[in-house]
C-alpha cells in the first residue's frame, strides 16, 4: 500500500514540473526493425521525462533525401536525425551537427566500440551516437554444407566460395549457391562490390584522387562477381538488395550470403525465418589481401545544429544509445534482437551471447574492419565500402548502375568499367578534386 502511494507520489512529482517544461521533439528515422523497436520503447522515455516525440519514419533512400534537403537548407524540421557513418564526418565538418560530447558520466563513452566511435567522430568529438553498427560476413547453411560433405573454413577465400557455390546450386529446386547484392546504389551493390575490390587489392582512387576503375583488381573482381552470379546466383539478382536477399535466404533459397552482420538477428528469429538454427557465420571471404574485405557501417542518431530543442534531443539520444536501453530491449523484446555492434559491454553479456550465436563473429568482423586503412595500397580517403567525400553518393549510384548492367549481360565488364571510370572522372572534375 505504501509502495503504491509512493509510486503515485513519484508519478505526481514527475508529472507536475514536466507538464510545464514538456517539449515536443521530431525524430526522423529509417524503418529498420531496430528503429521500430526504439519507436515502441520510447514511450517509456516520454513517460519518464514528460516530453513528447513526433516520429517521421521513412524508407532509407527517402529518409536520406529528406534529411539532407532539410539540413543543407537549414530547414530545421527535425530535432534528431538518423544518419550513417558516411554522412557523419562530412556533415560534422560543415558545422551542420551539434557535438555530442557532454552526455552524463553514466553514458560511458569508453564502452563504445573503438572502431565505431572513431567512425562517428571528428577531431575526437562524437557527432552522432551509434544506435547499431554492422560489418559484413559470410552466412551459410550448415545443413546444406553437411549434406554435401563440405566444410566452411573460418576464413574462406573467394576461390573456395566459388567451389562451394558450384556444388550447392540446384536450380531445379530453386536453390542457389550464392546470393549477393545486385541492386544498383552506393549503399546497395557498391557497398558489397567495394569490399570485393578491396580484397582483390584495388581501390576507388589513388593518392592523387585519380579514379582506378579500369585497373586490374577491378577487372578481376567484377569479372569474378558476374561469372559467379551467372552460374550460381538467383534470377533477378540485379534487383536484389539487402532486403530481397534476406527474404531469399530466410526462405531457404540461398546456400551462402555475404552481407551485413545485422542480418543475422532476423535470420535466427524463427518467426521471420525458415532456416533459423541452420546458419553458420564466418568471416567475409578474401582474395589477395585482408584489407577492406569486410565493411563497417553504423546507423547513428545526431542533432542538427538548427534544432531549438538541443537539450531534449540530446537527452533522448543519450537514452536510446545507452547500455540501459540495450538491456531494456533484451528484456522486453528478447536478447537476439538487441541492437548489435555498438558497445563492448553487450559482448560481455552472458544473456546476449547465449541468445545470439552470431555475436562472436559479429564483433570479430567489426573489430577487423578499419575504415582508416581500407585498402592494400595507401589512399587519400577513409571508409571501407564508401569514400567519405561529398560526391561519392553520386559516383557510387552511377557506377552501381553500370555494374548492374554488367551483371545482366547488357554490357561487358570492361565496357561497364570504362563507362564507370568516365563518369567518375567527370564527377570528380566537377567537384574540384581533379583539375
Amino acid at each position, binding site marked *: 500500500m505504501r509502495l503504491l502511494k509512493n509510486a503515485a507520489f513519484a508519478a505526481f512529482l514527475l508529472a507536475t514540473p514536466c507538464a510545464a517544461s514538456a517539449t515536443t521533439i*521530431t525524430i*526522423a528515422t529509417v*524503418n*529498420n*526493425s531496430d528503429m*521500430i523497436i526504439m*519507436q*515502441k520503447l520510447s514511450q517509456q522515455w516520454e513517460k519518464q521525462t514528460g516530453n513528447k516525440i*513526433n*516520429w*517521421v*519514419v*521513412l*524508407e*532509407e533512400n*527517402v529518409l536520406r*533525401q*529528406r534529411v539532407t*534537403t532539410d539540413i543543407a*537548407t537549414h*530547414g530545421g*524540421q*527535425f530535432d534528431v536525425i538518423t544518419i550513417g557513418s558516411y554522412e557523419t564526418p562530412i556533415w560534422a565538418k560543415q558545422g551542420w551537427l551539434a557535438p555530442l560530447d557532454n552526455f552524463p558520466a553514466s553514458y560511458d563513452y569508453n564502452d563504445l566500440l573503438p572502431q565505431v566511435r572513431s567512425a562517428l567522430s571528428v577531431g575526437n568529438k562524437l557527432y552522432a551516437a551509434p544506435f547499431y553498427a554492422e560489418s559484413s560476413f559470410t552466412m551459410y547453411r550448415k545443413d546444406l554444407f553437411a549434406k554435401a560433405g563440405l566444410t566452411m573454413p573460418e576464413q574462406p577465400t573467394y576461390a573456395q566460395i566459388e567451389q562451394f557455390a558450384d556444388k550447392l546450386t540446384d536450380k531445379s529446386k*530453386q536453390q542457389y549457391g550464392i546470393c549477393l547484392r545486385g541492386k544498383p546504389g552506393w549503399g546497395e551493390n557498391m557497398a558489397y562490390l567495394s569490399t570485393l575490390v578491396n580484397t582483390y587489392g584495388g581501390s576507388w582512387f589513388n593518392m592523387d584522387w585519380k579514379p582506378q576503375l579500369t585497373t586490374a583488381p577491378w577487372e578481376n573482381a567484377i569479372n569474378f562477381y558476374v561469372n559467379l552470379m551467372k552460374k550460381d546466383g538467383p534470377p533477378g539478382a540485379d534487383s536484389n*538488395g*539487402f*532486403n530481397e536477399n*534476406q*527474404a531469399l535466404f*530466410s*526462405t531457404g533459397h540461398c546456400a551462402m550470403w555475404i552481407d551485413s552482420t*545485422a*542480418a543475422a538477428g*532476423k535470420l535466427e528469429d524463427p*518467426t*521471420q*525465418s*525458415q532456416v533459423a538454427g541452420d546458419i553458420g557465420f564466418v568471416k567475409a571471404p578474401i582474395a589477395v589481401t585482408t584489407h577492406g574485405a569486410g565493411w563497417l557501417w553504423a546507423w547513428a542518431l545526431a542533432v542538427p545544429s538548427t534544432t531549438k530543442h538541443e537539450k531534449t534531443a540530446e537527452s533522448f539520444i543519450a537514452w536510446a544509445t545507452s547500455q540501459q536501453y540495450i538491456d531494456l530491449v533484451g528484456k522486453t523484446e528478447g536478447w537476439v534482437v538487441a541492437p548489435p555492434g555498438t558497445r563492448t559491454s553487450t559482448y560481455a553479456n552472458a544473456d546476449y551471447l547465449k541468445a545470439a550465436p552470431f555475436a562472436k563473429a559479429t564483433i570479430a568482423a567489426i573489430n577487423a574492419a578499419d575504415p582508416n586503412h581500407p585498402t592494400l595500397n595507401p589512399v587519400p580517403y577513409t571508409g571501407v565500402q564508401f569514400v567519405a567525400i561529398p560526391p561519392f553518393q553520386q559516383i557510387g549510384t552511377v557506377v552501381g548502375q553500370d555494374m548492374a548492367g554488367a551483371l545482366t549481360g547488357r554490357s561487358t565488364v570492361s565496357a561497364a568499367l570504362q563507362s564507370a571510370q568516365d563518369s567518375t572522372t567527370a564527377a570528380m572534375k566537377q567537384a574540384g578534386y581533379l583539375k
Partner: protein
Amino acid sequence: MKASLAFRIWISLLGWGAALAMFFPVAWMVLTSFKTEIDAVATPPLLFFHPTLQNYFQVNQLGDYAGAVWNSVVISFGSTAIAIALAMPAAYAMAFFPNRWTKDLLLWILSTKMMPAVGVLMPIYLICKSTGLLDTKTGLIAIMTLANLPIIIWMLYTFFKEIPGDIIEASRMDGAGALAQIRVVLLPLAGPGIASTGLLAVILSWNEAFWSLNLTAVHAAPLTAFIVAFSSPQGLFWAKLSAASTLAVAPILVFGWMTQRQLVRGLTFGAVK
C-alpha cells in the same frame, strides 16, 4: 434486338475475365495482408492459410494512420474545392466569350502542368521554407491547387462548351451578372461535369506522392508519406507492406467505387453532342 444466350454467356465470361485480371493485383495484396510473413513469401504461393490480423495491428502501432487519413482528406478535398472555385469563372469566360487569345491561353495553361516537379523541387522547397509553409496543410493545399488547376480548367472548359451559348445569352439579356449566370444557368447544366472533374481532382491529389512526401514531415504528412514507412524495412516485410497498402488504398477505393456513377457521367469530354 435481343442478344442470343450464347453471346451473353461469352460476353459475361469475357467481361468477368477482364475484371478479375485487372483486379487480381489488388485482391492479392488484400489476401497477402492477412498472411504471416513466412506464408507471404511461400513458394508456391498460398491461396489457403491461417488468416491473421497481426499485420494490421503492427502497422497501426507504428504509424499514425488516422492522422494520415485526415491529412489526405483535408489536402485533397481542400485543394480540389479551391481549384474548382478558381477555375469556374475562367472556364466560363473562355467557353462563352472566346477571343483570339483564348486558344493560346488554354494551351499555355495546360503547358504549365508539364513542368517536371523534380526539376523545380529546390525552388519550391526554398519558397516554402522562407514562407513557413513547410510541413503545413496550407502549403500542400496551395501546391495541389496549383498543380491540378490546369487539368480542372481544361475539363470544365470542355463541359461548358457543351452548353448552348444561347442559354447563356438569354440569361445575359435578362440582365444576370456573370456570377449569377454561373449559379443559375451553368451549375445545373454542367453539374455532372463539375462533379466528375472534382472527383478526378480528388483522386489525383490523393495519390500524388512527390510534393506530399518532400514537403511534409509530421503535421501535414498524408497517406502517401505513411506508406513510405513500410516500403522496404529490413527483414521479411511483404505481409506488413500489404496491410499498410491496403489501409492506404482502402479509403479512396471505397470513395471511388461509391462515386463512380457520378465520375462516369461527367467524363464525356465533349463526346456527347
